[in-house]
């Protein structure tokens, strides 16, 4: 297999995006694509975070974007949400080109998107109830009684109705993310983006979040984009997985297809293998020469 050096000096496969098809991952019809990314290029200084990325995210499913730390997964969500501007390429959400929209149009589009940040991003001076009520109070003219009912329903959906009077500082990490999830669904968005939802969670919280993401996706008929490097949890709920590394999409397909038919690099990543195309050892001169050579 052709390989090239990563920025860390590791050998990785020369990246041609492979679509691994299986009965579960047939390409959806064009009108069923919610987010369409074409030729995306994004640089930080001289470093290419994305170098010609094409991604299609279908409606109604859970799509996972996976890859090692530092590959720009969170950056991708910020690009989709219009918080960052690409250096080249286009991103369409529900048929609207995100970076061609005026500020007003972009804000209108964002009202139909929810985002769950890694930290939860709850407003620390507001309690749980007011955090969830915030988007409703900002963007709707509902009376206080209706707002209260809606907030309690959203909190009920994430199992935290009883915690509505707590402050964010009184919540555990998992609870904070569930409150943030309730806030993200407050306006009944068409899609939710999850930024590393499982990082740093205990097994119970992780299980709760995994179930919530899938359940909310199916019950509310929304589309979910999950950015994560927690392979097992993400594959448990994802319909479609994109694996990205070194600025490119390496492979995509259903979790099962990637496990079974993925390339060497993907198999190492999905299986969490210590050695493989990404070697265990950082490139170095031979051990013998290092130990007994001139520099010793």
């Amino acid at each position, binding site marked *: 297999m052709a390989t090239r050096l990563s920025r860390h000096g590791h050998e990785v496969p020369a990246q041609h995006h492979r679509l691994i098809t299986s009965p579960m991952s047939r390409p959806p019809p064009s009108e069923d694509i919610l987010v369409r990314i074409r030729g995306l290029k994004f640089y930080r200084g001289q470093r290419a975070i994305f170098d010609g990325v094409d991604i299609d995210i279908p409606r109604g499913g859970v799509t996972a974007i996976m890859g090692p730390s530092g590959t720009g997964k969170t950056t991708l969500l*910020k690009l989709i949400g219009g918080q960052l501007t690409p250096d080249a390429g286009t991103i369409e959400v529900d048929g609207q080109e995100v970076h061609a929209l005026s500020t007003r149009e972009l*804000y209108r589009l*964002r009202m139909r998107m929810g*985002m769950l940040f890694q*930290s939860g*991003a709850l*407003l620390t001076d507001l309690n749980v109830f007011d955090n969830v009520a*915030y988007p409703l109070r*900002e963007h709707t003219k509902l009376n206080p009684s209706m707002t209260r009912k809606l907030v309690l329903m959203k909190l009920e959906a994430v199992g935290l109705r009883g915690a509505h009077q707590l402050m964010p500082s009184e919540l555990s990490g998992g609870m904070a993310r569930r409150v943030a999830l309730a806030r993200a669904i407050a306006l009944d968005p068409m899609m939710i983006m999850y930024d590393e939802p499982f990082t740093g969670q205990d097994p119970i919280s992780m299980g709760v979040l995994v179930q919530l993401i899938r359940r909310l996706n199916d019950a509310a008929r929304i589309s979910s984009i999950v950015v994560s490097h927690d392979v097992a949890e993400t594959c448990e709920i994802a319909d479609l997985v994109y694996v990205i590394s070194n600025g490119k999409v390496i492979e995509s397909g259903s979790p099962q297809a990637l496990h079974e038919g993925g390339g060497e690099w993907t198999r190492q990543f999905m299986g969490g293998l210590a050695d493989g195309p990404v070697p265990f050892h950082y490139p170095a001169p031979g051990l013998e020469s290092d130990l007994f050579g001139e520099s010793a």
Partner: protein
Amino acid sequence: MDWLAALGRGGLAVSARLGRANLLMLAMLGGLAELVRRPRLLLEQLMSVGVLTVLIIAVSGVFVGMVLGLQGYYILSRFGAEATLGVMVAASLVRELGPVVTALLFAGRAGSALAAEIGLMKATEQLSGLEMMAVNPQHRVLTPRLVAGILSMPLLAALFSMLGVYGGWFVGVGLLGVDDGTYWAQMQSQIDWYEDVGNGVIKSVVFGVVCTWIAIFQGYDCVPTSEGVSRATTRTVVHSSLAVLGLDFVLTALMFN
């Protein structure tokens, strides 16, 4: 040639920061209309930026006035001019010490708190969260703080000067025996409403704009890490203090010829 390149890079970085600061100011001014519709946001910030700074301003004002009373009496009594103690205390406070010391204290107390608060909101993704909820964080979070800072500074400076005058009175009249009537009468006749008080107010408004702008910009522009927030708070105090002292000289030169 390395030093030249470093100098160029430094110059470009400073220019870029100044540009970002100006753009941020424009963005905050764009939120004024929204602030008129939501005065509650301003009231909350007036509490946090202004009212919570009152204690340190009040205590400092009293002590600065007392020191002025002591020092003034010591010098003026050499020339038999202790009757003008009230004028000296009031003029020093209203023209210079009131606006300048208030601005320095404001930068240390409210400015650093503003920078840290906004920096932490950035580090904990609260500002990004607002953006993704289709709420403009510059209008919702920053503009109320800017306006609260600008409104608070002249009021705090007035409080500082008033309590300083009473501190000077306590020492001069209460402890050192200066005539009570002379203390106030001299002050009333010699202190000019426009020349002294008006110019002091203008100074404190300018300092209010500068200190709050610096604090907000440092917080908003910081590297979103604990170290970045810490650097932002330090920079806020250092830059604000230097800006206040530099601007004070320029304004004094312009106002009093």
